[in-house]
């Protein structure tokens, strides 16, 4: 499985009998061929990451005197951040957003949908599948506009409510967090559904049937047989959905702008505000490092708790 694609073709062609010189030459040739790719990765991927680390420890600014004379300021950005009540609020909002929109919303709902559609009529599966996937293929900014149009003071939802005799509610203002969470669930569930559908299809029917013959209830089959078998997919999906949700900016920014007040100010919004509204690029970069850290920690936690190897 771990065969090295770089070396193996040469050994296959030359066999073990060839001289070391020749082998060396192939290695050099491989390196030469890979060089452009490496260079590109170095310049456009590793470089920016290293720069991010560096900038997080400077007072880099978009404008003002610090833009001219950027200084290394050690851990000041981080000290500042941990004293900033807005940062604490943002972390809380991020956790809430992550918990409800990614873990509970997309993951659980996606699983239920996949389960309900399992072994149903293919035509039914296809129609429902397309409807759900429509939410996923819609670009984030379009999703945001759809939901703003729906939840607006004079939007569709209020128009419907008024028909039934309710008073209109300023949804985006009264329930901002719930609004952006629901919009993200609507947008992202299809992905989880697809992952789980594929995983569930891989569970051999005979095992389930054997369990039923042995007297297991439907719930027991699901909990004791199916779930452990698709554990790998659950974790992978959890990680992907979490990382995707941690980075959601467009949806929230377009729907509520992080407001009202700080009601939907997740870390990406907070970072944008610090970097491009307050012009404190260094501080913004430091926040992005913390965001990265949260993503790593959460991913490792998933892997450990589920005892899955990647």
């Amino acid at each position, binding site marked *: 499985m771990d065969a090295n694609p770089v070396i193996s073709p040469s050994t296959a062609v030359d066999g073990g009998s060839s001289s070391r010189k020749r082998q060396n030459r192939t290695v050099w040739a491989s390196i030469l061929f890979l060089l452009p790719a490496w260079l590109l990765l170095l310049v456009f991927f590793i470089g920016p990451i290293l720069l991010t680390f560096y900038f997080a420890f400077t007072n880099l600014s*978009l404008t003002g005197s610090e833009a001219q004379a950027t200084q290394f300021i050690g851990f000041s950005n981080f000290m500042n951040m941990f004293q900033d009540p807005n940062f604490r609020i943002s972390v809380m909002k991020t956790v809430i957003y992550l918990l409800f929109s990614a873990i509970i919303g997309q993951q659980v709902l996606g699983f239920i949908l996949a389960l309900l559609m399992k072994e149903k009529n293919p035509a039914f599966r296809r129609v429902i599948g397309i409807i759900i996937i429509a939410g996923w293929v819609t670009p984030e900014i379009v999703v945001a506009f759809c939901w703003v149009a729906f939840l607006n003071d004079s939007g569709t939802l209020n128009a419907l409510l008024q028909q039934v005799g309710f008073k209109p509610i300023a949804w985006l203002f009264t329930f901002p967090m719930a609004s952006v969470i629901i919009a993200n669930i609507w947008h992202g569930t299809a992905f989880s559904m697809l992952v789980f559908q594929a995983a569930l299809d891989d569970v051999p029917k005979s095992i389930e049937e054997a369990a039923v013959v042995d007297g297991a209830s439907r719930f027991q089959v699901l909990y004791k047989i199916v779930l452990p078998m698709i554990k790998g997919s659950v974790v992978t999906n959890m990680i992907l959905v979490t990382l995707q949700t941690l980075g959601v900016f467009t949806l929230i920014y377009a729907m509520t702008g992080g407001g009202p007040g700080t009601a939907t100010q997740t870390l990406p919004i907070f970072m944008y505000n610090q970097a491009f509204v307050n012009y404190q690029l260094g501080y913004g970069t430091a926040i992005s490092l913390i965001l990265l850290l949260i993503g790593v920690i959460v991913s490792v936690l998933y892997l450990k708790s589920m005892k899955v190897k990647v």
Partner: protein
Amino acid sequence: MKVKNYKKLAAVSVIAGSVLFSSACSDSDSASGNKTAGDKNTISITFRDGGGTNKGLTQWLNNDIIPAFKKEHPKANIKLSPISASEGDYFAKVALMLKSNQSAPDIVTEDTFMVNSDASAGYLEPLDKRIDGWDEWDHYIDNVKNGVKAQDGKTYGVPFNTDSRGLWYNKDVFKKAGLPVPWEPKSWDDILTAARTIKKKSPDVIPMWMNSGKATGEATSMQTFEMLLYGTEDPLYDKDKQKWIVNSPGLLDTYTFIDTIYKEKLGPNLSQVLNGQGGTIAYTQLMPKGKIGIGLDGIWQAGNYRKDGPAPWPEAFDTLGYAAMPTQKGQAPGTTSMSGGWAFSIPKKSDNKDLSWEFIKFVSTKENNLKLLLKENNLSPREDVSKEKEYLDLPMFKEGSEFLKNTHFRPSVDKYPSVSTVIQSTVEDVVTDKLSPKQAVENYKKNVTRVVGKDKVIER
């Protein structure tokens, strides 16, 4: 042997390919950027437009300025490269553009409150030497000239407009409520009394509209918070000591006034006013319908109601009045205002500074400046223009120009933009009742100190 040659050839072509690829990228970059490298006859101008913003400026450049300038400089080629963005994003985009040789334009329009920041960042060219040899500069109002001076005492821009802020009020609403017309409030209490009366007599009218949220950005800081604060004894910044005032009776009173408006429900619904579009809706939709009693805002709102404006309203200036903002308790000089405005600056990375300066001189003459302001509904930075009859005949311009007498400019200190965002978020927290006025001052103190540093703040 053949295989080896192949490999060599492949390797060489891959490397050559990647070099070509990268150079192709950089080529297309410079073509799409604003750089006019080497071409001494082309200058590019960056300003904000889109969504009805700066329509007057764009028309003026296209119809009046560029054809006339080309007559004097037949070889000159003027390229407009406007940025379509919200006000806040415009500043960030301009800063990014000015940073790079590739994208820096030759002339940029700067909001005067950003001049100091961008100058301190080394993005702008000082103009003192050029201004020394230019007599027209004497006609500029001194107050406005200070607005384009950075902390280092040098001048970094030539203003093309300025503005003032005051209280718009609807005479019909006032008459219905039994309030005096014309209205001349003498203190904050007079404003509150008028608002309370309107609320009692016309419950469906919003008594007092002022920008109050983070979404309205600088408008919240300047039109609301600073209009109030500069009517107290305590400004935002102590110029002599060069420190930010982070705790003062004036600050507390300002937050208290804002709190009172919303606590007594004298303001609009929060979902209306905490919205980025709030101000636009207020002046283009609600005001013409007589749904607003008093609005604290700038002279430019008059432009909405012109024939070619976004909300034409022929009777606007019979119905609307424009009163000066009183000081807190009516203390001398009795009224107050805040002024800003925009200026033409030359980026340090412009490669055509001489022609750019010629252009700025050309557009800044009395005649050309007047032409702009007749289109734009802002006040002129030139004394001689504000004496022209055509100009004074513009609705509310006489009043608006009056306010300039007691006006204030925002501190030209490079941390101002950051302090301004602290103001916006504390004002929104007061309005949404998250903070009491006292807590708001505490919060303001803490956050401003964090932004500007402990050694740059004082309390009064």
